[in-house]
């Protein structure tokens, strides 16, 4: 006995369901062919007294998966990981999250010019601490 949903008679339905299937069975990067389309991890940026802290929420990774670079006032967090979405696909009864590659860039503006940037990965959150640049009072001579 077949149970047919009334909607399946509409031709658009077949097309749509194919695209939707593709969305769920492949990662976004495969569908659109880019590194940047992956859902970006959420992040908090908190300014403390002497540091600027960036918390990137990325559960389930390991410390080695991350690459953090600071260049010209831009801090880039990259997760380099073999995507595992296709792994034993038949065993998954429900799949609502998986680890994917991502790149997220933060503008540091006045922070991070000099000083040591520290990072720690705990409880699925990558915390990056950037020391604040201390502005020294300057006196400007009038010539």
């Amino acid at each position, binding site marked *: *006995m*077949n*149970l*047919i*949903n*009334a*909607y399946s008679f509409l031709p658009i339905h077949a097309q749509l369901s194919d695209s939707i299937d593709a969305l769920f069975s492949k990662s976004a990067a495969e569908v659109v062919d880019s590194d940047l389309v992956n859902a970006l991890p*959420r*992040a*908090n*940026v*908190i*300014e*403390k*007294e002497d540091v*600027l*802290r960036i*918390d990137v*929420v*990325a*559960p*389930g*990774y*390991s410390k080695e998966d991350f690459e953090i670079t600071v260049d010209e006032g831009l801090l880039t967090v990259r997760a380099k990981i073999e995507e595992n979405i296709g792994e*034993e696909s038949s*065993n*998954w*009864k*429900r*799949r*609502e*999250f*998986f680890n994917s590659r991502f790149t997220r860039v933060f503008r540091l503006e006045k922070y991070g010019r000099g000083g040591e940037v520290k990072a720690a*990965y*705990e*409880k*699925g*959150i990558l915390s990056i601490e950037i020391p604040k640049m201390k502005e020294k009072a300057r006196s400007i001579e009038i010539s």
Partner: protein
Amino acid sequence: MQVIARIPNQRRYAMKRAPKRVNDFNLSIPVNLKECDDHFELQLAIPGFEREQIAIEFKEEDTLVIRGSVKKNEETGQFHQKEFVPRSFEKAFTVGDSIDKEKISASISQGVLIINLQKREEAKKEAPRTIEVF
């Protein structure tokens, strides 16, 4: 035989089904469920939670309830960007008879809670059978 499913009156249906109060964070806790030969693995992504904040219990024999509690957020400092706030949550799953309720274990690692649900002996996956055709 083919049966065409009736299209329910969408609006009435939605009204009937709508929960009274939706805790959007509950909806935003993603869950993975993997079936292996002798157990199920339930994974919950709960970044920011520690072991002590998680409580797992059985309710009414077949409902597995997972609770995470967060104390008041005491983060001091000025937020320039705030996309994530850990909140208390409660998630419930119905566990079928195929699970051995005495053999449930859980672990947490880097923000992912993994619950192992051992299957009962009789529910373990058998090798596919071939049926002879006469």
